[in-house]
């Protein structure tokens, strides 16, 4: 039961506004000092409104192309949309259920975090995640530039659990933290801050006056792969305009 005054962090991503520029993804790698080859946040190229696999959609059929920015369909009946995907901070998170040591845990505000000092590196969570948003520290990492960038300090929550550190230990899993170290001091996640088209909205789902609550409850923002029942805290607003050439 939700306690009085308890927050439920949520993000709404407006696919109508997203232009696939990858600013949020690059910003994410910068603020979190992600090594080369790590992307907590990716921008997938899809056909419009491919959030659910329950219809005869590209989500089931496979992509139109192996490359990004390639529309699906036959000319001139072409259509395309962008699907930014980072950790969905599921309410019923499969990664949390499979973690044998409870290194992945959920905070009261709904965000899913990883305790970098507890993780044993079995990678079961990566296998269990339907969204493919977790990265493993396989070994010696490279950075470009080769010095620490972004939010450069450790961040601990809930009795000292280390949920962010500029250089994660080798052999542990990492992923999007909803920018816990920024949110906890009243700032927005960095991807929300840097998005040039304002496609990302962040707030408290339990506050009925918040913009995210309004978008979810009234404007029909929906969850990615909602049919799996993971109940993400990230929602998507559909593409409304037809984007066909004809």
């Amino acid at each position: 039961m939700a306690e009085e005054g308890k927050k439920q962090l949520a993000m709404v991503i407006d696919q109508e506004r997203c232009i696939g520029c990858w600013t949020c993804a690059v910003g994410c790698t910068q603020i979190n000092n992600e090594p080369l080859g790590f992307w907590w946040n990716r921008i997938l190229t899809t056909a419009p409104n491919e959030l659910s696999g329950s219809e005869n959609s590209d989500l089931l059929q496979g992509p139109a192309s192996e490359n990004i920015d390639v529309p699906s369909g036959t000319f001139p009946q072409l259509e395309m949309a962008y699907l930014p995907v980072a950790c969905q901070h599921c309410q019923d998170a499969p990664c949390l259920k499979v973690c044998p040591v409870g290194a992945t845990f959920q905070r009261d505000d709904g965000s899913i975090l990883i305790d970098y000092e507890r993780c044993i590196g079995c990678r079961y969570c990566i296998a269990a995640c339907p969204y493919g948003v977790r990265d493993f520290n396989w070994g010696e990492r490279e950075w470009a530039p080769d010095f620490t960038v972004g939010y450069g300090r450790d961040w601990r929550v809930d009795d000292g659990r280390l949920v962010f550190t500029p250089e994660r230990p080798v052999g542990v899993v990492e992923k999007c933290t909803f920018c816990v170290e920024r949110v906890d001091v009243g700032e927005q996640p960095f991807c929300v801050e840097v998005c040039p088209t304002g496609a990302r909205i962040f707030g408290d789902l339990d506050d009925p006056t918040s913009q995210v609550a309004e978008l979810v409850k009234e404007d029909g923002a929906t969850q990615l792969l909602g049919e799996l029942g993971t109940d993400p805290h990230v929602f998507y607003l559909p593409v409304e305009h037809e984007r066909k050439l004809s």
Partner: protein
Amino acid sequence: MSAAEGAARPPASRFALDRSARIWLGVLGVIVLWGLGSWIYQVAQGLIVTGMRDEVLWGLYITTFAFFIGLSAGGLIMASGAEVFGARSLRPLSRIGVLSAASCVFVAGLQIIPDLGRPDRVLNLFLHPNWSSPLIWDIIIITVYFVFAVVDLMLMTRRSGTPGARARAIRIAAYIGLPAAVLLHSITAWIFGLQFARPFWNTALMAPLFVTSAILSGTALIALVALAAQRFGNLSLPEATWSVVRKLIATTLAIDLFLVAADYITILWGNVPRDRAVLDMILPGGSWQWLFWLEWLVGGLVPFLLLVAPRERRPWHLGLAGVLVLVGVYAFRIELVVGGLLKPILWFPPGVALGSTNVYSGSFQLTGSYHPTWVEYSIVAGLVAFLALLLTLGYVWLRSLGEAEEPA
């Protein structure tokens, strides 16, 4: 221990190993040390020295882990089958069976360690268990199963107590061992089968499939060990025992392939692209079709015919069939572990971030690929050699105790 029994004990010289046995053990020891050295190298460098990345995130280690777990089945099935189902002709294999069960499950437990990114934190599994994780269930059942197999082996080799009491203890152990074995294989199956993020894994058939393939591969291993003991040791088994072993392998092979076929047909008839994605890569014509041929032809039809067709039975028929069955079951493990990871549900470009980058492959992968490295082959070879070492030494020890007595 009575004086009569003491006098009947075999002389110490039965511990003695001839020259070929010493060479065999020496070679195994070198491979074990090579594997250990490779693991130390891996610990120093991180798992980056393996072929695994964020898309195919489990490889040879987990494949071999599942394979070892399966191998451990044969033993307790043999020993328990002799008692629970009254298959008396299996009784001469009871002790070798339980020895192999204990050895295989022990090596399976060890095989988890090199897969961990932080082996130094392995105790977290016991300090901070998360009860909803099938991995924790598996750790528990592996531990219980190992302890049980060791106790069972002690019961079978002890010389105190009346023969009647000994027989009763073995019989009780058999009734515990059978459900424990089924549980071990089911839980290992559920590590994969419960994951809805991987459609190819997410089938209720997974547990029955694991139990069947475990009995299949485990019995094949016992057959090979018994053949080796007959050829190089002093074991001599009646034709009735070999006949039951052949029938057991042939029958479980047929059931195993039937279950796999039932899974394939469900996927193919449903024709849901998300489910077909992986299967299409494995079926003939796909890029992983070698798995299909290993499973159905090399490890399926050929050993089945070797077991049932010849009018005149020769040991090499069973030996070759046993080896091929193990090849087929290993192919099934690869198909399952690696195959299930080849296509993510969100299969859109650019794909999954790999967690490392290089100038040729970039940072992303749309369809998974996996090529094990020499480190992975070395560590797995080291553990296989360690298993062979345990089985050899265990057999020599059992032989030194003399023939298994027939319980009253």
